């Protein structure tokens, strides 16, 4: 059994692949507001790869910053995606499609509220509240889309990933 605290070449390649997949799926659905596969794949990666998935989440966030440039949203991306990994780790013990579905839907619904935190520091609570409210219709769409994506794609994608992770002996 390899020590879990050490990063191997396999880890680096795995994290690179996961980051690339996250970026690719982000682009795939970027034209549809509120619909994204990043949450779905981050949850799935975390189920198989554990805490190390945080590095893929951060890799994805920094890749987005490089591609899109500096902005307030940079801060949001840096804490939001690792937060999803942390929440998945908490839910992972239930090992249930429904637990992941509720997590994904809840994350989508609260995405705007959680993303509005930097505005509390920049403009105060009213700015934060207003910014969150303006995006509520998109948060609702995001939550519903995340719910449906997890319910529909969890089983088929889980089985494919199980094969890949077993074949290449990828483990946390």
């Amino acid at each position, binding site marked *: 059994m390899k020590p879990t605290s050490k990063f191997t070449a396999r880890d680096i390649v795995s994290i690179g692949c996961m980051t690339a997949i996250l970026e690719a799926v982000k682009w795939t659905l970027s034209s549809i507001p509120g619909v994204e596969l990043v949450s779905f794949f981050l949850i799935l990666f975390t189920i198989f790869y554990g805490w190390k998935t945080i590095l893929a989440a951060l890799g994805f966030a920094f890749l987005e910053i490089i591609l899109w*440039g*500096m902005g307030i949203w940079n801060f949001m991306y840096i804490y939001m995606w690792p937060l999803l990994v942390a929440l998945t780790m908490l839910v992972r013990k239930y090992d249930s499609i429904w637990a992941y579905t509720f997590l994904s839907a809840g994350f989508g619904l609260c995405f705007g509220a959680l993303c509005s935190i930097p505005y509390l520091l920049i403009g105060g609570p009213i*700015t934060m509240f*207003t910014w969150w409210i303006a995006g509520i219709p998109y948060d609702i769409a995001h939550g519903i889309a995340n719910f449906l994506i997890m319910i529909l794609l969890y089983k088929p994608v889980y089985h494919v990933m199980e094969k890949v992770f077993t074949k290449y002996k990828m483990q946390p």
Partner: protein
Amino acid sequence: MKNRKIWIGIISLLVVIAVFLGIYKMNTPQSVQGDKAYTLEVVDKEGKSTKYESRTDAEFLSQAMEELQEQQDFSFEGDKTEYGIMITSVNGTQAKDSDKAYWAIYVNDEYGQYGADSQPVTDGDAFKLAYETYQ
């Protein structure tokens, strides 16, 4: 037992959605129909101020700005985002993210709480578009 938990989860999500919709509905600005007088001041990068006065039937600021664009020596550009229109350029001056700059909207001397396309226009409103930077 498991089914019960699933239903509790689904109902909880629906309750959260209903609460969010209620909050959204209560806090969405209401528009005013009919003819309205308003002023628009543009404060550019150098702090130079240009004032415009006009009348409009438009319900929201972005529509009034589009009208003003056709009537007077005023122009603006914006990007449509999922949160509404984001003003990127006024009278040819661009506010770039790379300069940490943006066009702020003030309504009756108070910092605007809505985007240009959701900010209602009421009779006698004084709007200001100011080039501002953040740290």
